[in-house]
């Protein structure tokens, strides 16, 4: 990619640079900054309130706050732009209530703006931060916080000076996840009429038909992400994470009734805005527009979605296992590289990734066919790039970060001694992996599998471009209708996507609550936490 970037047509670059690129760049940076800070604010505040205070309705909120994860961003974006637009029901109601005539008569925030986009994207993405931070908070060594108190900090100072800095790995990882999701997401931003670097990539590629320049821009985007993630990692390289399994009674901050109420409101707002409201909007649409015929026509797509998600999740987890075991067995820092590289697939926009797949498997297919002709066998056709093979591989690439993270964090919880113990019992390495590591990794593997499953159900652009004939998934069905501004008709499909995502998430959360030790839900993309931490002792 970089090579083609260097040789790309500089004319177009110059033109873009002189016209819109600086603006796009600024938008990209601003969007990234807004979304990352908003998700951090949302996620940290909600996690802090849930773990460290006696907030009302804690039990319900604890898992309600994860649910936005099941909402595809493009659907939420559609719903919200529709709702808060000038022509949307909210502004209409306001106008009729106060008898305003034109936009000049009153002020209302512009949902189709950079900030509006950032808000809505943050509402969908903050659960990443919430989940990781919540687990980090829950696993924090209580003695550290007690030490802080005895050294003169009030509970609130404690939160700022100890709890937050201690949760920094979780914050860093979740922020980089959010960053990658944001920058890779083109469809969502488009609803808000916000142009980012991703817009420029599409423009140069599809509009100007200049793939090299598009590649160059994509490289810039990747470099940007690399740089941010690298700087963040570097900054906490020297510190060690000290995880403790001691989970003695959490010292909670006792809030006054008023504070409790407002804190509770904050969390409820996030849960409502991120999930309950869009979900009920969809439900209303389903009741208004859906017919049983629609449901049956969706069945095929639903089966396709399930099938695809099944393959992708399985392959991604298997690959993650291989990588993680490889990393574990070769205790060499440089061996972390494959796993880290594979994790950056998450940052590649789906369509770009799809193109890369076609570019990779197209020639392979051609050679396969050439060989077949040479051997006088029937031509197999495009058996890789023309089937769901390419699609599955693309999605595996994209979600490798999630699978790797979940599996490797599970692996990190297996004490290093267990690598040696079986050997001392006269069991060889293969057997010990099969009998010790795999069973212990069970919950992490399952967690990784489910997360990839959910993400695959939601994924759109790569599926759109790579799918074979007559292969509709729920997301492509919904997209067809959305692209014609008829989400009403697609609401049923959207609901199905959400529901398919919901069950694994709820299941993960409840299993997480049962066994406090498993951190799989929250350790998505732990692969980013870079180097092996020096172990204590």
């Amino acid at each position, binding site marked *: 990619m970089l090579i083609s970037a260097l040789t790309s047509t500089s004319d177009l670059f110059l033109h873009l640079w002189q016209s819109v690129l600086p603006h796009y760049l600024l938008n990209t940076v601003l969007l990234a900054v807004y979304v990352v800070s908003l998700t951090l604010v949302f996620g940290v505040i909600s996690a802090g309130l849930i773990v460290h205070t006696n907030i009302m309705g804690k039990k319900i909120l604890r898992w309600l706050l994860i649910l936005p994860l099941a909402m595809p961003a493009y659907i939420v974006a559609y719903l919200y732009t529709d709702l808060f637009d000038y022509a949307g029901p909210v502004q209409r109601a306001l106008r009729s209530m106060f008898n305003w005539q034109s936009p000049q008569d009153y002020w209302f925030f512009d949902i189709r703006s950079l900030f509006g986009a950032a808000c809505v994207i943050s509402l969908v993405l903050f659960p990443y931060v919430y989940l990781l931070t919540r687990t980090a908070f829950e696993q924090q060594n209580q003695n550290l916080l007690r030490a802080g108190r005895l050294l003169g900090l009030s509970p609130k100072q404690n939160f700022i000076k100890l709890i937050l800095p201690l949760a920094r790995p979780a914050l860093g990882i979740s922020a980089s996840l959010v960053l990658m999701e944001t920058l890779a997401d083109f469809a969502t931003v488009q609803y808000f009429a916000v142009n980012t670097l991703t817009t420029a990539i599409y423009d140069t590629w599809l509009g100007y038909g200049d793939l090299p320049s598009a590649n160059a821009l994509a490289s810039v985007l990747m470099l940007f992400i690399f740089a941010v993630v690298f700087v963040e990692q570097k900054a906490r390289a020297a510190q060690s994470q000290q995880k403790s399994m001691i989970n003695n009674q959490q010292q909670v901050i006792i809030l006054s009734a008023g504070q409790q109420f407002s804190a509770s409101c904050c969390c409820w707002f996030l849960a409502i805005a991120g999930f309950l409201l869009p979900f009920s909007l969809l439900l209303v649409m389903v009741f208004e527009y859906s017919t049983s015929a629609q449901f049956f026509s969706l069945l095929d797509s639903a089966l396709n979605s399930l099938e695809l998600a099944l393959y992708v999740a399985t392959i991604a987890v298997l690959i993650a296992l291989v990588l993680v075991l490889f990393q574990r067995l070769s205790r060499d820092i440089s061996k972390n590289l494959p796993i880290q590289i594979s994790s950056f697939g998450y940052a590649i926009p789906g369509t770009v990734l799809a193109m890369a797949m076609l570019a990779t498997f197209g020639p392979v297919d051609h050679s396969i066919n050439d060989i077949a002709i040479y051997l006088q066998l029937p031509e197999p056709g495009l058996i890789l790039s023309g089937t769901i093979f390419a699609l599955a591989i693309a999605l595996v690439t994209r979600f490798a970060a999630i699978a790797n993270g979940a599996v490797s964090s599970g692996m990190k919880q297996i004490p290093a001694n267990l690598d040696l113990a079986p050997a001392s019992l006269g069991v060889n390495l293969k057997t010990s992996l099969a009998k010790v590591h795999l069973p*212990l990794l069970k919950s992490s593997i399952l967690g990784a599998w489910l997360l990839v499953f959910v993400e695959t159900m939601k994924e759109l652009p790569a599926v759109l471009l790579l799918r074979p004939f007559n292969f509709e998934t729920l997301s492509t069905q919904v997209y*067809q209708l959305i692209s014609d501004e008829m989400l009403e008709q697609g609401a049923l499909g959207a609901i199905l996507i959400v529901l398919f995502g919901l069950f694994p998430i709820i299941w993960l959360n409840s299993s997480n609550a049962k066994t406090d030790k498993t951190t799989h839900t929250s350790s998505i993309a732990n692969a980013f936490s870079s180097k092996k931490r020096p172990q204590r002792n």
Partner: protein
Amino acid sequence: MLKQTYLLGLKIFTTEKAEVLRTEPKIIKPLCRIEEPSVLQRSSVVNNDEKTKETPLYFSLLLLTIISFSALWSFNSFASDEVNVYSYRQPFLVKPLFEQFTQQTAIKVNVIFAKKGMAERLAREGKYSPADVLLTTDISRLIELQDKKLLQAFESAIIKKAVPSQYRAQNEQWFALTTRVRNIYSAKRLGDIELDYLDLADEKYRGRICTRSGKHPYNVALVAAIISEYGESKTLAWLKKFKANLARKPQGNDRSQVQAIHQNLCDISLGNSYYFGKMLKDDKQKVWAEGVNINFPNQANRGAHVNISGMALAKYAPNKANAQKLMEFLVSKPAQQLYAEINMEYPVRTDVKPSALVASWGNFKADTLPLETIAKHRKTALKLLDKAQFDL
């Protein structure tokens, strides 16, 4: 150990399909295997029956891998009597037509729909591409396909007869199925007014105009048409003034502009002709459409800008004969009638009338600018839109 499994998996993945598929019911097994309860229990058996315990796990992982790959074949089988369509159009818009075609000819129609990257996909697939027919909604896409040498010319007296030469490629590589006008919608409150495209830059409409993204192919084609008429610098000036007149940043689609007019956010918008008809047929959107007049611009001079939805034959079409049948079917009178009826577009055949609703908007003069000329100016149009920072 797992690497081996993986390699083994690939090895088996080359075996015959039938054999692989037979193993499918066993998919439950691996999951059970991995859920082996606890280390203690497991380690206690380590020494006793190491070998027997080990194999199922291998086996299950292998199975999973195989099954994952086995499915690939199920999508690679095409019956002989079919035709494959790569479509830029949402399938539900063309589905009734295809159904009728299948009914008449017993040829099955397979469709993939995508808006982005279709040409790239076709190019990458090269001579093994399964695509027979391409369906686009915009002239620029057709020209792009043609320029990338992804199309082939074809001889068809039927098509030649049915489609006016203006809406056919000179090299016979593509043709239009329908035409659509880039109309200007104006609020009824403005009364009956005549609007040309150049009027969009008129200062008296400052803050009263809405449009979708300038980069949308429909708008790009319009800008390209303006360029071919007035030249680059004039067009840029026009774009800048047009931009200054916008009530809001370009956003949404053509329908939402009409909605904005309905909400009194603006008075004038750009939109394709068929949206007007579609909105009138939609319960919710009817009120929006009823609040606007549909104007055919430039009637006093060159005529209204017209775009096409078109069709082309893929260069390596494997089912060429079927493809030709489909193309000829789509320009047939009944198909044209049905297409026009469903999509509210103007049939390309002069002897087929548009739907009654569309016809009620009256006759209009269409710009006779060759479509190729419009396509030629597309990139310049994009650059001018960038320069005018139209979308920002």
